[in-house]
């Protein structure tokens, strides 16, 4: 609780990080309160062909799409999809990657080599290409997007945690704990992991942005959830044939993706500075 308050205060004093946090907060609010905030909640699945491709107005803040649905409302509901894809995919990646990195980093034997070579295989192929291949094979659905992203993202965390663990093992306090008789699990979970957690948190925050971008790319390529799901990438793909006349059609989801990805990146950069333990108590004395 104290730590949370401290974090908030630190965030408030760092302008760019605060902006990032604000953007993410907006995304979360949009996702949770989508039914309340949206002007045409039914338009996620309802079509009004006579009203198609209308420009922005008081009735339709971001105009309407090719089916006559309200783009503003669809973007709010799309935030739910974006968040669930990003949170689940990143969560799975962290749960797979962090333990693998820890174990491979702590032990220096063939198991750790094997684990790292496997993650190297994944890292050798550009992540987006691999994700496309998997999503393509499995067919378009939210679950498959999440699966494709998780399978291709965990090696990043394994790599990061591996190298951080290796350098943490050279720290005197880790050696001291081992000399004191601490078991490998104790050293890994209570000494190494907390001390490398800040870089994991930073990487995870920035990784969120990357995942959202990749998810949107998959959606854009038609590998995401099928129509009429209001997935942002799919919305941009649909808008292409009406450009440049229906400029609002692509602009609104594009802007949403841009702001959310930027939000995660700014927050991640801000957290990097804030989470340095040496500066911890210096503010609240």
């Amino acid at each position: 609780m104290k730590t949370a308050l401290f974090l908030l205060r630190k965030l408030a004093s760092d302008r760019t990080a605060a902006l990032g946090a604000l953007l993410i907060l907006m995304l979360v609010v949009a996702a949770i309160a989508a039914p309340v905030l949206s002007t045409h909640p039914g338009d996620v699945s309802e079509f009004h062909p006579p009203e198609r491709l209308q420009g922005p107005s008081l009735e339709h803040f971001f105009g309407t799409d090719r089916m006559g649905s309200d783009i503003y409302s669809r973007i709010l509901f799309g935030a739910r999809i974006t968040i669930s894809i990003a949170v689940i995919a990143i969560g799975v990646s962290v749960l797979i990657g962090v333990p693998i990195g820890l174990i491979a980093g702590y032990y220096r034997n063939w198991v750790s080599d094997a684990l790292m070579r496997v993650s190297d295989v994944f890292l050798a192929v550009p992540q987006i290409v691999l994700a496309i291949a998997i999503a393509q094979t499995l067919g378009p659905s939210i679950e498959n997007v999440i699966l494709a992203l998780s399978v291709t993202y965990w090696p990043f965390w394994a790599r990061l945690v591996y190298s951080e663990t290796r350098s943490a093992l050279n720290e005197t306090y880790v050696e001291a704990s081992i000399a004191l008789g601490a078991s490998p699990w104790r050293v890994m979970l209570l000494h190494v992991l907390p001390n490398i957690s800040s870089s994991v948190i930073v990487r995870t925050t920035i990784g969120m942005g990357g995942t959202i971008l990749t998810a949107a790319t998959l959606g854009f390529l038609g590998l995401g959830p099928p129509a009429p799901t209001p997935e942002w990438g799919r919305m941009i793909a649909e808008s292409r044939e009406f450009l440049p006349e229906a400029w609002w059609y692509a602009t609104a989801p594009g802007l949403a993706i841009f702001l959310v990805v930027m939000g995660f990146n700014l927050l991640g950069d801000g957290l990097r500075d804030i989470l340095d333990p040496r500066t911890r108590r210096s503010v609240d004395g």
Partner: protein
Amino acid sequence: MTDLLRLEGLKKYFPILNAWKRRTGWLRALDDVSLTVERGEILGVVGESGCGKSTLGKTVMGIHPPTGGRIIFEGNDITDLKPHESRELRRDLQYTYQDPGASLDPRWKIGRSLDEPLVIHTDLNRAARKERVREILAAVGLPEGHLDLYPHEISGGQQRRVGLARILTLQPSLVVLDEPTSGLDVSVQATILNLFLDLQKQFDLTYVFISHDLSVVRMICDRVAVMYLGKVVELGETEAVFSSPRHPYTRSLLSAIPMIGERRITEDFWLEGEPPDPGNLPSGCRFRTRCPLAEAQCAEVSPPLVDHGSGHADACLLSERAG
């Protein structure tokens, strides 16, 4: 007197690797070190930086696996213990780090760091552990309020006290003190040294005191071992070694101690420049390249550590002849 710890021909070689990770040689950090530590004594280990003092301490502790030789602690051979067996041993055999600040987890409050050895090695409940931590904190002379501070919030002298408290909670029988006074100002050094002596009486401790500060060693150690490039070159009662050093290296080291009202460097001082590269040692006696007395035979025979009676041993061909 009984031996608490006996080292027999202890060796620790570190491989020297080239850019392709191929071994091109060995760095002999410990080369055939044999000595004993008696229960209740303070054995000083002195020598220049890089002579293997810390490696000696860490190898005894099992932090580095030895390349050869045997370590016998309380009558048991502990050279090749399995990891879980050696974890048990940690209760009795402890090591304090040169930099006590770095040996404390920066994210753990002092109280939690002091609690950890008890969590690992005892079945005490939370309240009993808390009581024990309080006792030990009082024993090293720190206020209770420090339990809630992080390591970077206390001074170097206090960190050293915490480091000592941390290992004393388990009531070990042998403590290896690695440069325990380095980086402390003189008044703090004195209080810390007195603390060591008090705790030794209170907890019945045996110390291996690794230091390059000869005046401190003279003050508190019962016996002293002088190391040069991984070998013990002289070993004996502190007073005997300091008043009548036998090995030319010891003589030279001692003449480097500053004395008030005397010349900083006397005619006995020969140590110029750095010791030879430990990865590429000279043949025979490894001190001969800096020794003014070196003769032809010194290049051929590596002198063994020989006891000339009264427990005062040295490793020099020439002193053998003279003595």
